[in-house]
């Protein structure tokens, strides 16, 4: 082009603003992106959220402490056990309640099963976005096996309300251990099959290698945590950093990436699935005997068999079910490692039977701030790949 070219170049450099979502096959939920495109290159990307804002935090202020549990599990609707654990852990800190060891191991077991479940949903839908459509069917086949396990132990496939303040609501039934163990043995083989499908697939590699790279320092500045941060090379995992539940006794590795592009994020999550299966097996091996929920009748419902014999139990039961327990005033912030990053729960208690404020620090909400960095100056197709690898769950983002 000669020096007289600028006029024609101007016309070529016209920027078009396109709305992606909130109804779009490739946004994972109702996320709206207002994207300024120059040709196929993304020049500016503004996420607009709030389309599934449910006011869960406000609703929680109106309910007694144990009624909050079904509310909070519907935030990040794929990893529901993690929200229950964050909230129950926070309330247990507030009332200084120690949960029995069997409950700790059961909670860890279900948390890791839920982590595998979340990563399977992620892998199925992200591969679907990138064009590898068969992955959806294979991943959901395994996911159905996990949901069968949940249904066996908790009675419902999703949103199980299984964790209670003090432990878990019911012990695992007979036959659960065999089924779970068979699943944990089979999971690494399946993950190997997924890797066979994707790892050497030229199209998948071209779309994910080298795209959506953000440096480790920038991610730390933006408060990103979880597999995104680990893929960029920072070995920060709350399970190893802050010992909670039965994780100190488990022997597992944390996969850490190097470059921080989409391919690393994919590899980190897939490796996490294998590690989680190993933790599940260790939990089953080491599951101690004992009660599955704490003994303190002020906060925990007495077993139904006692209600017909002991007057005190009846009174405790009545008090807990009608008004609920009162929590001494105070505030606590408790966070755990969810499949997407640091999930924190802030509970403010004012001495009454209802919490005064429940706030969740949701990992997807904070991770979404890194999306703009991932998508700028890349092609639209790379933006879609980055969105899949970011793994946002809009229920958590919007709460």
């Amino acid at each position: 082009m000669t020096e007289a070219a600028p006029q024609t170049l101007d016309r070529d450099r016209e920027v078009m603003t396109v709305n992606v979502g909130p109804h779009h096959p490739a946004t994972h939920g109702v996320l709206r992106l207002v994207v300024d495109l120059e040709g196929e290159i993304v020049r500016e990307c503004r996420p607009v959220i709030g389309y599934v804002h449910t006011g869960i935090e406000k609703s929680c202020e109106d309910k007694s402490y144990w009624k909050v549990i079904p509310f909070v599990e519907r935030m990040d609707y794929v990893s529901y056990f993690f929200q229950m654990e964050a909230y129950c852990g926070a309330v247990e800190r507030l009332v200084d309640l120690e949960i029995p060891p069997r409950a700790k191991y059961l909670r860890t077991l279900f948390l890791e099963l839920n982590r595998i479940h979340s990563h399977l949903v992620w892998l199925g839908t992200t591969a679907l976005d990138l064009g590898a459509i068969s992955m959806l069917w294979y991943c959901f086949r395994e996911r159905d096996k996990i949901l069968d396990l949940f249904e066996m132990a908790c009675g419902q496939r999703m949103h199980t309300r299984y964790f209670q303040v003090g432990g878990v609501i019911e012990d695992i039934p007979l036959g659960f251990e065999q089924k779970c163990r068979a699943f944990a043995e089979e999971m690494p083989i399946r993950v190997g099959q997924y890797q066979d499908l994707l790892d050497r697939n030229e199209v998948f590699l071209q779309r994910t290698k080298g795209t959506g790279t953000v440096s480790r320092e920038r991610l730390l500045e933006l408060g990103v945590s979880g597999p995104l941060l680990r893929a960029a090379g920072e070995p920060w995992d709350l399970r190893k950093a802050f010992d909670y539940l039965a994780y100190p006794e488990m022997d597992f590795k944390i996969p850490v990436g190097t470059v921080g592009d989409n391919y690393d994020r994919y590899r980190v999550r897939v490796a996490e699935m294998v590690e989680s299966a190993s933790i599940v097996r260790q939990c089953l091996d080491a599951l101690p005997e004992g009660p599955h929920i704490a003994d303190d009748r002020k906060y925990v419902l007495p077993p139904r068999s006692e209600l017909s014999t002991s007057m005190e139990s009846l009174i405790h039961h009545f008090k807990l079910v009608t008004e609920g327990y009162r929590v001494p005033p105070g505030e606590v912030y408790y966070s755990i490692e969810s499949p997407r990053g640091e999930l924190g729960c802030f509970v403010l208690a004012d001495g009454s039977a209802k919490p005064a404020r429940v706030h969740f620090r949701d990992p997807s909400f904070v991770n979404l701030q890194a999306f703009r960095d991932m998508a700028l100056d890349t092609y639209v197709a790379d933006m879609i790949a980055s969105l899949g690898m970011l793994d946002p769950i809009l229920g958590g983002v919007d709460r």
Partner: protein
Amino acid sequence: MPDAPGLELIRGEIERDCPGAVLATSFDRSQAALIADPDRVLEVLGWLKEQPGQRYDFLSSLHAADYLPAEPRFAVHYELINRDRVERIRVKAMLADPGKEELPEIDSSVELFPTAEAQEREVFDFFGIVFRGHPNLTRILMPDDYVGWPQRRDFPVGGEPVTFTYSEGRFD
């Protein structure tokens, strides 16, 4: 977390460098908190982030709470983590409600911690706390034209009464 004596040491050191910025400390249920003066909260956060012995450089969460009917009413909480020593510390800035038609204000910490951008918008959206110096302080989760600050304690939970077939005429 820094334990109770450790927290007092931190407070002593901050007093030396930024006198008067920290109003009180609180160590409750093994969680350390510094209660800072809202006009000088950036000094406290910057000190905690940059001081060679402290280095709390990861802002894990920025959220607010409404302590009605206690005064001062609002508090903005900053949860900081030091990833090397694996320690948490909380900074609380208490804000009073200036009364009708005016919104409480505090400085924005977006320059210190870029992660605060979306979280401060959320606090503005739900409590009406204005962050001075924020690049784009608009509603993030509620519709743009919504009136009211939903998560304040005096805002009703909302909802409608459930209408059943026999009572549908009454709730017109």
